[in-house]
């Protein structure tokens, strides 16, 4: 029975002690501890969120980098292609220009040749006519002895010349 009969002294001291402990611990222990735990938890939470965000950013940046790289590669290819085309075009242009020039030159040369030829022929004709006049002169001097014959020949020659 003694065991289950609360003693008044112990009740009194227990109430006093426990309430004091409660007040002291609440003010000087639990509240600071709990608030610093909460603070730490918040820091950890924030850090985790930041890390997650950073990772996402990293992935995004990586993707962006890759697309940038791909774009650059494409651009490079395009530029190469363009330059090749340009080169080909320039060469082609140069060729056609050269061909034309050559043709022109040839044509001019041909014209010149024709002209020269014509001139030469005319000259030749002139020379021949002179020669033939001289020949005819000589012949006529020989044939003048024979007047009739001479006349016949002259007329024949003249008709032939015309």
């Amino acid at each position, binding site marked *: 029975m*003694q*065991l*289950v*009969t*609360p*003693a*008044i*002294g*112990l*009740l*009194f*001291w*227990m*109430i006093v*002690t*426990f309430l004091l*402990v*409660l007040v*002291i*611990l*609440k003010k*000087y*222990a*639990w*509240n*600071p*501890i*709990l608030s*610093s*735990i909460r*603070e*730490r938890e918040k*820091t950890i939470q924030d850090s985790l969120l930041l890390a997650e965000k950073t990772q996402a950013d990293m992935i995004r940046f990586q993707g962006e980098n890759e697309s940038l790289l791909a774009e650059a590669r494409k651009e490079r290819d395009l530029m190469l292609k363009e330059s090749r085309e340009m080169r080909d075009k320039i060469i082609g242009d140069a060729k056609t220009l050269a061909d034309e020039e050559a043709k022109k030159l040839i044509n001019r040369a041909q014209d010149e040749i024709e002209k020269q030829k014509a001139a030469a022929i005319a000259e030749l004709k002139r020379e021949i006519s002179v020669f033939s006049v001289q020949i005819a002169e000589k012949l006529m001097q020989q044939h003048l002895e024979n007047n009739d014959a001479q006349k016949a020949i002259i007329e024949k020659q003249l008709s032939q010349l015309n």
Partner: protein
Amino acid sequence: MPYFTVLFTMTSFRKHLWGLIFSAFLFLPAIAGQPDTHVSNRPSNHQNEEKKSKKFDAGKMIMEHISDSHDWHLWGEGHDAVSIYLPVILYVKSKGFIFFMSSKFEHGHTAYMGFILNQENKIVWESSDNHEPVYDLSITKNVAAMLFAVFALLILAIGMASSYKKNAGKAPKGIHNLIEPLILFIRDDVTKPALGHKTDRFMPFLLSIFFFIFINNLFGLIPIFPGGANVTGNIAIAMVLATLIFLTVNLKAKKQYWKHIFLPDVPIWMYIIIIPIEILGVVLKPFVLMLRLFANITAGHIIILGFFSLIFIAEAIRPGVGYFASPFVVAFTIFMSLLELLVAFLQAYVFTLLSAIYIGMALEEEHH
């Protein structure tokens, strides 16, 4: 003394351990049944009887250990006993407050200022004619032990708080590493499920209750001064804690709680049965809290002391048998002590858990 004998015999008789365990089992009924009869029913050895004028009484020894007293018994028996005397504080209406040391009583052999220590270790008037009530507010063994434990708790907790302030944002160090998980456990696994967003409001109260019970339980397991007192196993301590829970629950209770008691959702004719049961439940919940703590801790102390008594009971049956019994007793006591370590935590946890649940039930808002 018994500790040294026990340690010595433990090493030298290890070879016979199995035989000893078997023989010790034979002694088990000794405490399970009536140890007194076993001891006193052997008056055959006359010489022995004379040598031991005072027979070993396990029940008396255990009761002395688990109940409160005005001095802190360390070792020895009777006149050789070594105790720490504690201050006695009495209040009597006609005399006011009276202070003196409990050594004045000389273990109940002498009266002092008209008071005497009776068989139940209570301070009463020497003359049985005096019926004036005596309020004993002494610093008893339990009060002193409680103060030691509380002092340790204060140092630990306040030290922890200041170290948290010093290195804020960093991980805890040393012993705080051990306490912080407990705090988090109480907050996240015990209180939060019951109280939800109101957790923070009751955290200081519940943490104080948990750590008060836990540290007093642990101090109770230390066999020497300043531990060993059966503080949390004392009905007064458990009663105050349970009363605080009772007051918190009923003073903080919301409408829903009272509606649940006086206007439950049952047919009207059942009110005759339900309402008395509900009202009984209001008182019964803290009452069971008190009883559970008191019974568990006291039982733990009784078991461990009972096992130690086995040595002396065996010795009384036949001199020397106690030596044989001791290794088994020590082994089993170690086992029981480990179990009590678990119980120390478990009871603190259960008390806090149920308190949180009761408070949570009282604070429940109307939602259905």
